[in-house]
């Protein structure tokens, strides 16, 4: 059992001011090593300002099969600026 290790999800920020985006994951024995491996895997070319790694098992996620989770019981179009008829000026 020396090639498995836990996985860490990797978030990449291309430059300051941009959001961190999920780019993939790495296998690593600990968070510090996960950062090193994430740099080699996801930041060996283009600019990178910051990386986050999060143990995959620590991520709480919705279930794709539970589509009701995102179901909307009423019309929510009033949350969209395009839904309003008043002229701009």
């Amino acid at each position: 059992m020396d090639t498995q290790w836990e996985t860490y999800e990797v978030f990449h920020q291309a430059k300051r001011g941009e959001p961190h985006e999920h780019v993939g994951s790495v296998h690593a024995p600990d968070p510090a090593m996960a950062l090193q491996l994430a740099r080699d895997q996801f930041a060996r070319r283009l600019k990178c300002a910051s990386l986050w790694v999060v143990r995959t098992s620590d991520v709480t996620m919705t279930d794709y099969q539970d589509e009701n989770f995102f179901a909307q019981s009423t019309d929510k179009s009033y949350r969209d600026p395009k839904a309003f008829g008043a002229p701009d000026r």
Partner: protein
Amino acid sequence: MLTEEQKLAAFEERIARGEKVEPGDWMPDEYRQNLIRMIGQHAHSEIVGQLPEGKWIPFAPGFRRKLTLIAKVQDEAGHGQLLYRAAETLGKSREEMMDELLSGKAKYSNVFNYPTPSWADVGVIGWLVDTAAVINQSMLAQGSYGPYARAMKRICYEESFHIKQGYDAIVALAHGTPEQRAMAQDAISRWWYPTLMMSGPPDSRSVHSEKALRWRIKTKSNEEVRQEFVDLIVPQIRALGFDVPDKHCSFDEKTGHYRYTQPDWDELRRVVNGDGPCNKERLEIRRRAHDEGRWVREALAAGGAARGVRA
């Protein structure tokens, strides 16, 4: 509760709408097993693919080409890891896949079982083999399984650099001495048919094709992928003044495509099943690298344990 038939219908409707399938979604076991097999073989191909070129790193002509080749081989290691991870989302562990590669049970791309006796082979692998790979992988990037399609996008972007460095190396030889031109022609001639084989046998002879197309595991047939490669590469080869080693290779005005001679499909079967010119050598080197790297893995794991990280 949905019946199995209803689940299958919903799954096929999702794919027909052009939506991606994600880990955790219900999927037919056959879809899962097909993808595990395909992504696993793809990952192994990247890992073994480091070896034919890697051996040229110490002998690369010039420091820049040496750095470039190191970067390319590192990319292949990275691609292997991305792909093992994509396959893991379907329920097979990386360790299990690595063990299958080391034991010789796993299959991988035919091309990496051919020898690389000259520097021109490095150029031709980047130019011909990686062009064929990118055509195949761009097709796979349109596939239905989210994690595989995402990995393919990233990989295609990086492979475009591989093609460019290979082409650049061959252009240098094309403008070189008669010996250098001959060396490049010899490599093109040796790699032509193995590269044509990469996209697989004609679909009538391929066991896996029909369902793979319906479920968008693949989005083009093997023949379409191969024709796209031939149409793209033949003019490039001839533009540099080299010959395509197929006297029947010619442009067909009627179809708008190049005609070409089919490779020897029995050779493909032999090479993929372990009986190619270099299969044994490749696996031996891979096993040795795995054994010799054990202390590194142990040291990393011990470092984590010492910092109180759960294993």
